[in-house]
């Protein structure tokens, strides 16, 4: 994960935005269809999967909420919504981050990539996606988008990882099905595919 984006920094960001910190307000602020009473929202532009998107974002809104509930990019999953599981992992300037623990306002000048953005325009899958199919890496699939984004981030930083590099690179992504070995093999195969 990006060492600069810690839970502490996230909380500080929320406080700086002038909104009281509570788990429910963090989670639900973006989920409804109307604005929460008293909240100040504003239109911002964010770069998601190479496209600039204009979106109405509450001050305390997490990136995961914006992606899922404002931009309909539901490939980014919420497993815990509190920085424990990694199902919501996206890339921010090529670095894997938990989207549930990032304020959307804090990334408006950065490049955001989700699992939906990995396919090429002609429909070719990213090597990680292709390798994960060949190795049958997913089981239930709920953690898979997060595993994929961590793997893509790892391979961009380290195109030829060892097995141990992969284990550590994806260690922030929990899989309750226990498909870890299948994911490791998938990442190593993706590195071969290049």
């Amino acid at each position, binding site marked *: 994960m990006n060492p600069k984006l810690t839970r502490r920094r996230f909380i500080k960001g929320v406080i700086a935005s002038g909104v009281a910190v509570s788990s429910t307000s963090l989670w639900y602020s973006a989920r409804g269809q109307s604005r929460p009473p008293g909240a100040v929202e504003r239109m911002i532009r964010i770069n998601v999967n190479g496209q600039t998107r204009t979106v109405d974002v509450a001050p305390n809104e997490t990136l995961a909420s914006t992606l899922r509930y404002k931009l309909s990019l539901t*490939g980014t999953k919420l497993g815990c919504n509190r920085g424990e*599981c990694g199902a919501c992992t996206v890339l921010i300037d090529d670095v894997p981050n938990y989207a549930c623990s990032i304020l959307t306002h804090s990334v408006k000048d950065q490049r955001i990539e989700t699992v939906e953005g990995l396919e090429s325009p002609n429909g070719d*899958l990213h090597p990680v996606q292709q390798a994960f199919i060949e190795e*049958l890496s997913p089981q239930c699939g709920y953690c898979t988008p997060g595993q994929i984004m961590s793997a893509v981030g790892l391979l961009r930083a380290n195109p030829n990882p060892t097995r141990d590099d992969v284990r550590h690179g994806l260690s922030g992504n929990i899989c*309750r099905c226990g*498909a870890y070995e299948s994911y490791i093999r998938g990442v190593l195969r993706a590195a071969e595919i290049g």
Partner: protein
Amino acid sequence: MAYMHIGKDFVPPDVPGKVTGRIKYAEDYARDGMAYVRLLTSPMPHARVVDIDASEALAMDGVYGILTADDVYPDGEQNSTGLKVLTNEPTLIGEPILAVAAVDEKTAENALQRIAVTFERLDFALDPLDSMQPGGPNAYNGGNTFVFREGFARYEWSRDQVTAFRNGAEPTAEPQTTWAYGDLDAALAASTFVYESTFTTAGYPHMSMEPRSAMAYWENGKCYVHGSSQSLSPVAEGMAQIVGCPIEDFIFINEATGGGFGQKARPNSIPSMAIPAKMSQKINRPVMMRISREEELLIGGARVGFQGWIKVGFRPDGRMAALDLYIVQDNGGKGGGGDHSSAADAISMLYQTEAVRFRGAGIGTNTGHRGAQRGPGQNQIAPIIAPIIDMAAQELGLDRLAIRRINAVDEGDTHGPSRSPVTSAYMEEAIAHAEQAFNFSERITRSRQRNGTKITGIGIGQGYHDAGRSGMDGIVRLTPDGRLKIHNGVGNLGTFSYASTSRAAAEVLKMDWDQCDVVTGRTDRHVPMTSPQDGSNSIFTNTRTNWGAAHDLLAKMKDIAAMDLGGQPDDYDIDGSRIFRTANPSVGMTYAQVAQRGIELGGRFSGQEYPEEMDAFSKLSVDRLAGSGLIGVFNDPRHNGTPPGLCVAMMEIELDTETGKYDIKEVVNIADCGTVVHPQGLDNQLRGGASWGIGLAGFERHLYDPQNGLPASTGYWQSKIPTMLDVGRETLTGGVDLPDPENPVGARGVGEPAMGSVAAALASALWDATEGHLFNTAPVTTDMIVNHYAGTSESAKGLAQNNFRG
């Protein structure tokens, strides 16, 4: 036998959607005008709702309505330990009391703050043994246990009996339930090594990645529910009853489920999914109910924990002669099960014990819901019995593999109180396979080798679960475009069995897989009734049904060919999507042509007639498919015997005696699950089971504050499950791949034993690394290991349940 599809890898049709993010889980759906539900849950472990005043909340802008237990159960709640949709009598923290629907979740949350609920606080229990003492607290309103067909009751031991048990003595109280076979006294008398001890295992939470969120709406008199379930047709049928909707008007949609390991298999363990359906009916809007991680942990369920006493006797040659087992199981605030009995049955199966006595009791505690979850009893006992077998080998001067070979279940063996025969069993072959894959002879030389503060341990474990059912239905359909539609009611829980079991039909009809469509994901696609996807049964149960339905289709094809082309049905054969005369292959019909003829002929050929024995749900599906193709239907007769899912695991660990931490070097997990239907799917089950087994034996548990009954573990952080760094540097898998005679393709299930084997292997490796110390508990946590090496007590309170032992 050479197969076209069985034993071959393939890409299940949902996998591309899983790697692109396109496949949708329940919470990914939305409807125009959708309202959002938030739940008011019990803040107390045991209470009674005295009054609810929601007038202020209902007057708020944006609030659409409230749903309470009185709405769901107008005639009163059923007197049972089953989870309720909503309740006025909560027996665990987090149990849903009421739901509020509003324009958005924030408004719903604010509304909850304005609802005044008056609770009557009741005594609560966290430890079954505390509850069983005279004057101990009752987890339920009416007792501390539930007796089938009788209701709540009080079950007690004397204070001395509880104290003696906590201090390690054999329980002397009358059990609630018991069974036995063989002459136990004689078997013990013939034993030269007898081991006796108390033990405990912790309840371990379900913790699927996808919380059990659901969305529902009513349209033209039909109820549509998007849910998170590991089963499709069985959950739909039960959920329709809970919602109060006729099954013909109820549509359950479940393309994918983000993890289901038992607790999402049946409607009675996920009744909360009815909340949005009932609310939608009340407020006439689509309703989304998102469940948080904390809510998921509290209502998402767990396996029961054990407080037990075990006595095992071995003959001089290593044969397990006697087992005497007494288990008090923690049934939690809701649910329960027969885990304690299954634990004894598992030992009986795996080690072919000559004489067994089981005694047990199930006691409620005001902790999480307990019920179905990967290995009901077989897996909890696996890490307890494995090191005892190691100890026996050591004391009898036997090789640790040899003692397992001596006791291995084999063809013709029986198990349990009914002495039911196995359909087949190849445990010795599985041991040999694991021995080779693990390179056991080389690795065992490292046993107990020291490297500074570190010491190597080698572990061996075995797992079992009865892995197959029958009596279900199959439906296949050949359409005029020449494609085979395999209608499958199996849920998509991540095992890919919905697809792999469908390949049995393609096999019968010799069809290329790309000419087949698996029709599943929602019940208005007309799927047959299957057994729920629990108990490791799917691969056995549903290859039988799909095989049978395809054979019915094949027979009808031959009938049509004989009618139209002359001769007798037996004169015809199939290949290349054609049916033709065996003696003259140029005379024949394409599958597309025969499908069209089936529609024209109608009657039994096109779904207007079907076996009376089929389930009503399946009949409804066939009725709705009638006339759309040549239809094959099948009601599966019962099979004979127990199809055992069996696994053998081996593990090498390096234990740091100063920190109590250990590094898992390698895990080997080998299955005896009959014919391997889908090799990659089997690998996944064995790897996943390994992860679960490490969690069970190493660190998963429920922790509660004894003063207030508050859960201390409400997320992945506080209730850690294995991560990629916890499961070993490499996990090797494989299957014996010998066919079972009770299944047409020779398959048996494997999901659950794959966990027990590795839990046992880890416990066995810890026994080895600690140079023969028996912890008699699961999980064995680092604090216990440190205490062991420090020479301090590993357990401040004997057999503590739902709390730290030390």
